């Protein structure tokens, strides 16, 4: 059920666009055909236009509306970006877009003794339908939703009445920040924890889960592949063997920058999962900000390789190195 689906593209009409939290728009699409309702945890791929170039982005399906014929998405506008999210925010009612059928990489397993759903920020989009499905089945669940402040939290108006006491809001501004150890401890034995949120949150939960000796397969998560420990900055990447050097702007991935300067790069998932875009790190002046979920913590610490579709490098100062100055980072790598 969760094998990788072959994508089938179809047209869809934009039915509604409205702001549901700060920088978050709820976008309703009506596909020209829909073989089956979108299962909880699924996403669609959508053709977008970025810098005049056709590209593809993935967005979780928040739920179905209309008579089950419409797909609801939630899209946060990424700051400093004129990328896919800007395109999505510019959609207007009546416009046509190209999308795939709902694709499933993050299925909900039914029949477990207990569930905890943990959403961070815009990660809520992957969780809304799961919460609904668990409630409908009468499952034993808790729904934790964290963010920095309340005005950033989309879909509260439907989540609060729907989940009542099962909903546990954690808002940094209000002093009720998410406690990762407590979160993990709250998952009953044999139960599952579903997580979608920014990388720091996911990393913290993954380590807490491992420390607690929990079964890895019971932690279910989906990655952003887009947020790291540090704000992205421009850095220089060199491939000495090929005599290539290029600057990676703050809003371009290392993979894209390398391709643009003529390196023949291998990749597939482009979200830090598959391990195909791995490059060998020869030398780094700065600090590596690993953003993938392919390498282990030990491999991250070793720092001799990185997944260039998502991971970046920051200056020694940004990375907190003693005596580090603010010179932009430089990384030397080798590629297959």
């Amino acid at each position, binding site marked *: 059920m969760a094998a990788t689906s*072959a994508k089938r593209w179809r047209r869809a009409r934009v039915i509604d666009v409205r702001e549901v939290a700060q920088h978050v728009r709820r976008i309703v699409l009506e596909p020209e055909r829909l073989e089956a309702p979108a299962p909880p945890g699924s996403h669609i*791929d959508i053709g*977008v236009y970025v810098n005049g170039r056709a590209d593809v982005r*993935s967005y979780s399906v928040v739920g179905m509306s209309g008579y089950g014929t419409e797909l609801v998405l939630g899209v946060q506008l990424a700051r400093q970006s004129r990328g896919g*999210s800007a395109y999505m925010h510019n959609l207007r009612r009546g416009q046509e877009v190209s999308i795939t059928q709902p694709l499933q990489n993050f299925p909900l397993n039914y029949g477990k003794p207990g569930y905890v759903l943990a959403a961070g920020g815009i990660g809520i989009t992957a969780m809304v339908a799961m919460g609904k499905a668990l409630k409908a089945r009468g499952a034993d669940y808790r729904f934790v939703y964290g963010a920095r402040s309340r005005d950033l939290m989309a879909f509260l108006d439907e989540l609060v009445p729907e989940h009542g006491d099962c909903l546990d809001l954690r808002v940094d501004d209000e002093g009720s920040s998410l406690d990762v150890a407590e979160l993990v401890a709250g998952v009953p034995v044999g139960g599952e924890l579903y997580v979608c949120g920014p*990388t720091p949150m996911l990393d913290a939960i993954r380590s807490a889960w491992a420390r607690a000796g929990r079964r890895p397969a019971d932690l279910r998560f989906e*990655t952003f592949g887009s947020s790291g420990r540090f704000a992205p900055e421009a850095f220089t990447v060199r491939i000495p063997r090929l005599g290539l050097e290029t600057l990676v702007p703050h809003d371009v991935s290392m993979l894209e*920058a390398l391709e643009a300067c003529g390196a023949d790069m291998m990749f597939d998932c482009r979200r830090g999962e598959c391990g195909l875009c791995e490059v060998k790190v020869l030398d780094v002046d700065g600090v590596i900000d690993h953003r993938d979920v392919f390498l282990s913590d030990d491999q991250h610490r070793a720092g001799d390789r990185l997944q260039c579709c998502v991971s970046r490098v920051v200056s020694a100062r940004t990375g907190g190195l003693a005596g580090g100055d603010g010179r932009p980072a430089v990384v030397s790598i080798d590629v297959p």
Partner: protein
Amino acid sequence: MTGSTSPASIGRPTGHAGFRSFPLNAWYAAAWDHEVGRNLLPKTIANRPVVLYRTTGGRPVALADACWHRLAPLSMGKLRGEDEIMCGYHGICYDPDGRATFMPAQETINPSATVHSFPVVERHRYVWIWPGDPALADPALVPDLYWNEHPDWAGDGKTIRVNCSYQLIVDNLMDLTHEQFVHGSSIGHDALSESEFTVTHTDRTVAVTKWMLGIEPPPFWKRNLQDRFPDYDEPVDRWQIIHYTAPSTIAIDVGVAKAGTGAPEGDRSQGVTGTVINTMTPETDNTCHYLWAFARDWCLDKQVITTRLREGVSNVFFEDEQMLEAQQRGIEANPDYDFYNLNIDAGSMWTRRIVQRMIDAELGSDVGAVSDEAGHAAAAMTEVTGAANAELPGDGGTGQAAEVAGGVARHREQPTAGLMGRGL
């Protein structure tokens, strides 16, 4: 998931389960040398029916296996004279160039009576044919498989007709992780999936290198090493170095040496080396001919070892064959699903990319042409967004247009700091 990039790479459809195309402008091994003689050998090569035979002068010939007259297979006819073939239906005869030399019931030869004669080269014990444009058939492009007939090597091999796309065999040979699981009883070893490998590539080749140092040899290699060093029962250094030449030839340099005797540095005097020679020829989109051989550099005078290795490798390949045919059925039974490509698939992903570029070049299409799916999306989006962007108020529209010049997609989403991140 929000705002992350598509799992499918735009313009790189090659990692897909449905990828099963092949270039035509390439040499493919049609048969072993000894299979082509004064007999008519029908084969389908790259979806083309071909009949192979040898002239009395010893030259191999490959003609289209369909008579110009009414498409009866020439392979049902017979050889005539020194180098001709006669159709078994109405008797038209053709020479090695495919030109008619005899027509029944008329005194002339119809000037358009010809069948296609494929370029043929016999080299390294295989008869190679070129299904594509004959003008491009350069014999220098035949993959170098010298081990098959070199005095420093001894070996033999077989042909297997496999019910799977040739690409699945390429994938299989480029990925030796599977040995641990598919060939556990012979050449498999836990160290295989645990040890690191490196991948390099050029325009037409890919190499994957894996060394396993100081390991217990698996049974197959223990026996081989003992051919040379009968008393040796200690750990070994083992290597697997895969050399791919596009589109479908793979020579794997394999072997073991007494551990710590310098094999990784190039001194293999305390070891045994084999070359697994593999060349796959697409028969149809979903089937192929797999010609393989195993050549060794030790005990060259022992025919019994040649036979033992040929039969041993044959058994190992039977395990692959079963898995690959089942995988092909799996692909066909799941048309709605696709591969998820992993780091261990890197070697195969490079071969697929190189093959795709060869196909693109043949079709005259842009190497960077987008895949069906992204193409569909892109085409649709061009109309749709062209219109939409035109309506956008100043900023958004000009901003996007202005960045086109940069030529780099800028779509990393906003970073975070702290558990919840900055933007959240």
